[in-house]
């Protein structure tokens, strides 16, 4: 079973590489935001998978945190883009 997890994880990483390229290449800031946001969501699943790979499934709290963090960061970035300020 762990092989399946492992393959999934590797696919996720490969996807992350592609997204990273997009984040760097742009061409607009929105591409960067999009790509980083997508990497963020991938990490959420990834951290869950890691729990399964290591056989410690009880740490899914981590994934929740990841999700929230990604969300808030994205909101902050967008507010910066839209309003030019954070407060």
């Amino acid at each position, binding site marked *: *079973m762990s092989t*399946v*997890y492992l*393959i*999934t994880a590797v*696919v*996720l990483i*490969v*996807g*992350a590489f*592609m*997204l990273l*390229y*997009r984040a760097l290449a742009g061409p*607009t800031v*929105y*591409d960067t*935001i*999009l*790509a980083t*946001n*997508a990497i963020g*969501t*991938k990490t*959420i*699943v990834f951290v*869950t*998978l890691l729990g*399964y790979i290591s056989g410690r*499934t*009880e740490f*899914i*709290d981590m*994934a*929740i945190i990841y*999700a*929230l963090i*990604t*969300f808030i960061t*994205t*909101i902050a970035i*967008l507010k910066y*883009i*839209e309003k030019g300020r954070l407060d």
Partner: protein
Amino acid sequence: MHWNEVVCTVLLALGCVINFSGSYGVLKFPDFYARLHAAGKTDSLAQVLILLGLVFVTPDVLTKIKLMLVAFILLIVAPTATFAITKAAHLDGLRPWTRGGRQ
């Protein structure tokens, strides 16, 4: 291989494929809105699929609940983020790419 493992494997495989295609789309599509499309759609679906797949192999009830919770949060948060990005881009004056060329 137990049935739940089979289900899990299938869901995971599906998730993998969608995930990969989404990433590939983000990499290759010609303009922002197309890439957004690729990312936004696949993100939610693929991740939720994988999480659901995992639910099947989890013996522990609490963990199952947590997994569903994560999936739920993803379902709310990911589209919101996508929406916000789109709106920002649109407000910023970014126009969709057309075959006629860039505006």
